[in-house]
């Protein structure tokens, strides 16, 4: 029964992902941290799937598709921003505020 440890690892990875988002200003790195969070969720799904059946694994499959889609769009957006601002540092991307 690896559920408990797996969930702990998952929680840790999730928290690290959140921490990364909190700590970084580079848009790409932040996005990577988000991927980390998704993977933490995946780990939880897989761990549950071991107990509860295959649905969890199928969910992971879908999450990967989502991650791929997000990556495509997200990176395209980052490219678009870079074209305007020549930076991906979020500190300097604050035209919209107030």
């Amino acid at each position, binding site marked *: 029964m690896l559920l408990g440890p797996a969930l702990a690892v998952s929680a840790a990875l999730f928290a690290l992902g959140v921490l990364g988002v909190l*700590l970084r200003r580079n848009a790409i790195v932040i996005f990577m941290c988000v991927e980390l969070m998704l993977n933490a969720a*995946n780990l939880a799904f897989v761990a549950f799937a071991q107990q509860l059946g295959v649905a969890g694994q199928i969910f992971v499959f879908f999450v990967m598709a989502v991650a791929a889609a997000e990556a495509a769009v997200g990176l395209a957006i980052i490219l678009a921003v870079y074209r305007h601002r020549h930076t991906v540092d979020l500190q300097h991307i604050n035209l919209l505020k107030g």
Partner: protein
Amino acid sequence: MDGTRILFGGFAVLAIASAGLCITRRNPVASALWLVATLFSLAALFVLLDAQFIAVLQVLVYAGAIMVLFLFVIMLLNLGRAGPTDLKGPLGLGVGVLLAGLLLVQLLVLRQAGPAAGGPARATTEQGMIPTVARPLFTAYLVPFEITSLLLLAAIVGAVVLAKRKL
């Protein structure tokens, strides 16, 4: 059983350590590579959790395809050199660690929690194999499966729209 546990522990430590390095490396390329390391570790964990097919996908799709995309963009934007750090200052660090730590504390409640009793099907060793995963994918989970196809299509269209040279 013990071997599994030890292996699990090892890969878990590896995953967490690489994740920690991933979020703290100044160089985005380094971050990306450490993330790849995490993903590999996770793939190993998946195997240990009887999800072999997913583990393969993890390596192929995630580490292979998605992360390559990341690296490609990093290179494209010429962010490969270690520039000035994008880590936040002490205040940001403190706040971040505090918040993420609290979140971790909250989530660690889960460690004691067991999953629902009596799921639809108990785990079998066959579970992680391709047929067991694939069959429901095209029957019970047909609708979400088709949605993912649309999702990818939309993402492609979107990426093209945003990234193509000419309008």
